[in-house]
Each structure stands twice: as structure tokens, then as C-alpha cells.
């Protein structure tokens, strides 16, 4: 299961080039790791020395890494197995709440975080199966809606269970079963404080390392370790038999089933493994912030993770991690900085001079999702494979981001996918404009459908007509 690793791609391409690639990658990886380890220590001197640059604080990096873990988890569901999940935040919430229930004064249970972490992971994975099992048969867009609804339900349930009374109707005696006004989840107030992870230092000092937002640097190393574990597992999964089964399902579920892949268990594994990393991130976030609130687990978080994946390159582990750091850096550091230094003041003046209160109160950070939304649309139209697509994965998936379930009208896809593959195999930068992008031909023409836009593929597509 683990020995096969990259054999197939390597044999296709020049092995020497492959070695060079590999060495180069190792060097880059080493540099990144060293930078990541050193950065919190040099952050202060760095920002003092070059104050003109908006350096991300270590706390921002912690958030970036948390989202990188989330994105890697969702990438299993979305990138590998091709299932669009818009309610991924639910598992994040479940992980965080599990931690809060088992390591806080809320129920008076104080289990060590190092154990709770795994319970949270298991809880998220179980819920992943619970959501996945009944929804496996649904096609892509219905699945998106079901997961979206599930995400909202989880958030609302955690919020509403802060004040719950369940009583039999008066006819049946009116006995109170739960409550009155039982507080199961903390409701809007959330659960606070949660015990952070602690490593006691043996010896006479009686000190210990506490990984909470009071000790950002230590927490950074912890989350970095979690991210490294996640990344490693995802990488091994991608190259495993299971990973190839996921990709086969993503490409063509019927064909995959015909090849002997058990699509039900394979998809369920995608859901549960994807969810379990979310539980990982949730357990960390809850303990790191030492507090959780239901409202932080909103639909927007799910979408943010989806945007990270689309931006970084769906299916590409490296791309997803870069995407998470880039997007969260923009969100938490760059936009506030741009707002404070460049945009807010003139908008404020404009608002005051025109009497528009909303402009006078303008804060750039309020509109972060406006920018993300535009990014999403542009990425889909211009560069659906993301900014850092994974070369080997792309060769397999023919270039386009979500090849997804090619249900229904998928006739023209293969042709344009093949075209895209040649356009953007290795080089992320200049090419998409050079060739007519796949979307350039069909739209404006009258659509004389017999000879529909790109050359019709051999005979692909569940052809109902033509």
C-alpha cells in the first residue's frame, strides 16, 4: 500500500529530470521548514528593521496553519474524491466542541488535551460517516446543498442547545425531560475557559509549557507539528491504493466501480478521513483560544476553506497549504494593513464630505468576502486548476480543477481538458492567455450544437443525443 508511491509518473517522465525535481523540492522544503521554525524568533527584529512591510504576526501564522490543516482535510473530500462539501465547518465545530466538553469546567470534565485531541478526531470522523452514508448517492450539486444544510444545522444546534427545555405535551403529563433551560453547549456565550494543551517540565522549577494564545510561539510549533503530520498523512494517502481509488471515482464513478473499486466504502473513507482532520484543527483551535462560540463556525468558514483549495489548486497538497497561508495572510494581515494605511482614510473623508455614513465607517476588512468572491469567480473562469497545481496529479486529472462526477452534459469536457493539460502542465505563470482558454470558444457563438464548440470527443459522454 505504501511502497508504490510515485512509480507510475516517474516512469512516464524523464527519470533524471525527476531526480532533479525531487532534489529541488527537498531543498525548498528544507528552506521552508527552517523559515517556519525561525520566523517567530526573528519576527520582532524583522518588523522593527523593515516596518514598511506588513509582516504577519505569529498569531496570524497559527491561524494560517489551522486553516491549512482544514484545507488539507477538505482537499481529501473535494480534491481527491471530487465531492463538493459546503458544510465542512460542521466537523471543525464538532472537533472544537468535543474538546470543550471534555476539557473545561462546563461539565467539570478535565481530560488532558493530548487524549482529547484523538477523541475529537474520532468524533469528527464518526459524524463524517453519519453525513456521508445517506448522501453518497447524491450528485454533485445536491450534495453541496445537503452539506451546506448540515453545516448550518450543526451550528444552530450548538447555539440553540445552550438553552433547551424538552417537555412532554400537557396531555401526556407535561413531564420535563430535559431542562428546564438546560445549558448543554454554552449557547451564544460559548464555552470558556477551555483547558489548553500543557507539557509539564519535570524538575524542581514546577514550570510547564502552555499552548494557548497567551503563548503564541509555543502554539505555533505545536500547530506546525500538527500540520506536518496532516500533510504527511495526506501525501501518503494520495499515493496509496485508496488515493488512486478516490481519483478514479472522481474521474468516472461508473468506470471505477467496474474496475472493482467499492465506491461506497471508498467515498465514506473520504468523508471520514477528511472530517477527522477537521476535528484535528477544531481540537487545536478550541484549546488554543481557550474559548469557543457557535457563531465562529459559520457558513463563511466552509466557503473560506473551499476558496483556499480553489486558489491553491484543487488536489494539490502543496498548493492547498500555500493557498491557506496566502489567503489567511491576506485576510488577517494584509487587508487590515491596507485598510489602515491606504484605503480607510480616503473613504472616510469621502463619506464625511458626501454625508454617507456607511462610507465614513468604511473598513476594508469588512469587505474581505467581496474580494474572495471575486477571486472565486475569476479563478473558475480563468484558472480553474488553481495557482499551484500539482504536476503529477494534473497529468492524472487532465488539468481541470474539479473534474468531479462527470454526470450529465459532460460531452465536451474531455477535449478541452486535454487542451488545458498541454497548456499548463508545469508552469504556473504565463500560459493561460496564450492559447484560447477552454471557455473562450463556446460562449458567444450561436451554439450551432451539432458541431458544438471544441472538437467533439471520440464518443465520450453519456450521449443522449447528437
Amino acid at each position, binding site marked *: 500500500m505504501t511502497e508504490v508511491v510515485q512509480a507510475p509518473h516517474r516512469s512516464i517522465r524523464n527519470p533524471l529530470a525527476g531526480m532533479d525535481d525531487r532534489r529541488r523540492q527537498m531543498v525548498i522544503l528544507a528552506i521552508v521548514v527552517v523559515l517556519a521554525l525561525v520566523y517567530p524568533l526573528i519576527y520582532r527584529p524583522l518588523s522593527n528593521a523593515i516596518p514598511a512591510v506588513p509582516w504577519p504576526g505569529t498569531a496570524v501564522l497559527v491561524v494560517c496553519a489551522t486553516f491549512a490543516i482544514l484545507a488539507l482535510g477538505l482537499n481529501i473530500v473535494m480534491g481527491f474524491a471530487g465531492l*463538493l462539501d459546503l458544510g465542512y465547518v460542521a466537523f471543525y465545530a464538532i472537533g472544537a466542541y468535543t474538546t470543550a466538553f471534555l476539557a473545561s469546567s462546563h461539565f467539570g470534565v478535565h481530560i488532558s488535551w493530548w487524549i482529547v485531541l484523538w477523541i475529537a478526531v474520532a468524533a469528527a470522523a464518526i459524524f463524517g460517516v453519519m453525513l456521508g452514508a445517506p*448522501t453518497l448517492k*447524491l450528485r*454533485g*450539486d*445536491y450534495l*453541496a*446543498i*445537503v452539506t*451546506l*444544510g448540515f453545516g*448550518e*444545522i450543526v451550528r*444552530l*444546534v450548538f*447555539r*440553540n442547545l445552550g438553552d433547551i427545555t424538552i417537555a412532554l405535551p400537557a396531555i401526556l403529563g407535561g413531564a420535563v425531560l430535559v431542562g428546564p433551560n438546560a445549558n448543554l453547549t454554552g449557547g451564544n456565550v460559548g464555552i470558556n475557559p477551555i483547558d489548553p494543551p500543557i507539557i509539564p517540565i519535570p524538575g524542581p522549577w514546577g514550570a510547564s509549557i502552555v499552548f494557548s494564545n497567551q503563548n503564541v510561539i509555543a502554539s505555533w510549533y505545536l500547530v506546525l507539528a500538527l500540520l506536518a503530520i496532516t500533510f504527511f498523512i495526506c501525501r501518503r494517502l494520495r499515493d496509496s491504493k485508496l488515493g488512486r481509488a478516490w481519483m478514479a471515482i472522481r474521474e468516472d464513478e461508473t468506470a471505477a466501480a467496474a474496475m472493482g473499486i467499492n465506491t461506497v466504502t471508498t467515498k465514506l473513507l473520504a468523508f471520514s478521513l477528511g472530517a477527522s482532520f477537521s476535528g484535528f484543527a477544531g481540537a487545536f483551535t478550541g484549546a488554543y483560544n481557550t474559548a469557543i462560540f457557535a457563531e465562529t463556525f459559520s*457558513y463563511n468558514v466552509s*466557503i473560506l476553506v*473551499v476558496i483556499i483549495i*480553489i486558489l491553491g489548486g484543487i488536489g494539490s497538497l502543496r498548493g492547498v497549504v500555500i493557498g491557506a497561508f496566502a489567503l489567511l495572510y491576506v485576510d488577517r494581515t494584509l487587508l487590515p494593513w491596507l485598510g489602515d494605511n491606504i484605503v480607510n482614510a480616503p473613504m472616510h473623508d469621502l463619506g464625511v464630505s458626501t454625508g454617507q*455614513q*456607511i462610507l465614513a465607517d468604511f473598513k476594508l476588512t*469588512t*469587505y474581505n*468576502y*467581496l474580494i*474572495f*468572491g*471575486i477571486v*472565486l*469567480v475569476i479563478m*473558475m*473562469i480563468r484558472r*480553474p486548476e488553481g495557482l499551484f497545481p500539482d504536476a503529477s496529479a494534473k497529468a492524472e486529472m487532465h488539468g*481541470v*480543477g*474539479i473534474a468531479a*462526477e*462527470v*454526470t*450529465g*452534459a*459532460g460531452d465536451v*469536457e474531455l477535449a*478541452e481538458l486535454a487542451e488545458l493539460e498541454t497548456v499548463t502542465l508545469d508552469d504556473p505563470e504565463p500560459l493561460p492567455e496564450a492559447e484560447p482558454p*477552454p*471557455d473562450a470558444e*463556446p*460562449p*458567444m457563438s*450561436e*451554439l*450551432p*450544437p*451539432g458541431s*458544438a464548440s*471544441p472538437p467533439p470527443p471520440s464518443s465520450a459522454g453519456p450521449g*443522449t*443525443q447528437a
Partner: protein
Amino acid sequence: MEELVKALTIGVTNGLVIALIAIGYTLVYGILELINFAHADVFMLGTAFTYFATEIIVRGMGIPASSTLALALTLIALPFIMLLTASINASIERFAYRPLRNAPRLAPLISAIGMSFVLQNIGLLLLGPSQKAVEPILPRTDVVFFPSGAAWFGVDEMIVLGVTIPLLLGLRWFVASTRQGKAMRATAQDREASGLMGIDVNRTISLTFLIAGALAGAAGLVVALYYGQTFFQYGLQFGLLSFTAAVLGGIGNLTGATLGGLFVGIVAAMSDRFIEAKWTSVIVFSLLILVLIFRPTGLLAEQQSERA
């Protein structure tokens, strides 16, 4: 009993509004097989435009909010608001969906999610971060009473019905009996073949988005007046309700969307009254999930079986 009837009345009123939005989802899905995530945000912009229209009427022109003249002017503004939301919806199709028409299925869906956020933030820019109270244009006089003397329904509900029912009937007539309606049905059935038959597919799709947007605008006006407020997050709230309605009725099915809207409206009103308002969304979403899992073709699915 009276409580039940009252809740039913509220449910029907809300349900008709939900149906107006749901039809937008259903029309677009029928023709493109795309869940237009941005649709509900177009509706939200409709509530925002209504807010500005009433502001102009009451603040700008100095007409007292409760006067008949203010109400008449607001209703005159209705076609303009519908025109505005219709063109917004059609431009979204033109710029965000049409380039992706032959892309993998989920690409336009993700593009739609992006557009939804763009519109939501435009709403945020227009309305600010909190709910905005709309001038009390709708008279709240109760006209029909229960035998016990308690109010049953009032002028406001009658006006809501007076706006929504003709629109729903008009749309039905349009799709069933006009040439353009026929073109829409043909395109929904088989896009390529209808192109071969000489139907301008792009124009028909644009028309569909125009109609969907116009209905969303009308729903926006009704909601802004009836609820007396507007909010940039109305899109998400009403969007899921109406999408549930569309799915319940069998997506792609106009009658189904209307009935689904009524059903969702009634369920929501019952839950508001007899359970607790904070659980209403949970109940509606669960309904959505259950329907999708057990009967993805909708509750009245005969004509639609091959699509869903």
C-alpha cells in the same frame, strides 16, 4: 384552533413569497442544471432597492409613510425594482456562468458561490452591517376577525397576496402559452436539439435569468414591506428556505415550486408558533436533507423523473 388558523395564514403569506424566490431557482436549474447561489442575494438586493425607494418617497418627497399615496408610489416603483434585479441577474449569467457553460459541472456552481458573496457584500456596502428598518408603508389594519374577535388577517397580508398571486399566475401563463415560454421549455428539455430547431439558446437563457431576477425583485419588495426591514444576510436566510421549497416541489417544476413554497412557509410558521423560532431553520434544513436523501425528485415528481 384560532392559533392554528392564524399560523396557517402567516404560513401561506410567507409561503407565496418563498415561492416567488423558489421559482427563480427552479427556472434556472431547469434550464442550466445550475443551483444559482447568487439568486437569493439578488432577492436581498431587491429588499435593499425597496428600502431606498421608500426612503426617497418618505424622506425625499416628504410623503407621510402611512398615506395611500406612499403605498401607491411604492407599488409604482415595483416594476423598476424588478427591472433592476432582472438585469443584475442576467448580467451575472452573462459574466460569471456563460463562460463556464461547457466546463465541468461544479465550476459554475463555485462561480455562483463567488457571485453570491460579491452581491452580499454589495448589500453590506449599501445597507451597512445591521438590519435597516423600512418605512411603515404597508397599512397594518386588520380587516378579518375570528368569531372571538381576535384579528385574523389584515390589509398588509392582502397586499402581499395581491402582488404575489398575479405574478405566479402570470409566470405560469408565460411559460405555458407564449412562444418564448415554449422556447424556455424546449431549451430546458434539450439544449442542443432546441438550438438545432432554431431557438436562440443564449437569448432564452438570458430571458430565464431576467424573469428569475424580476420575480426575486418582486419578492424583495414584498419582504421589505411586510417584514418592515432589510438586511444584507437575507440572501442566505431566504435562499435556503426557497431552495428547500424548490427541491420539495421537484426542481425544475413550476407548480411544484409554488406548492413547495407554501409547504415550507406553513412548516416554518407552525414551527415559529408551536416550537420555537430559533429551531425553525434547523427544522427546514432537516426537511431539505431528508427530501434530498429519500426523494430527490421532489414530492410531486412524475414529469421530472428523468432529470433529477
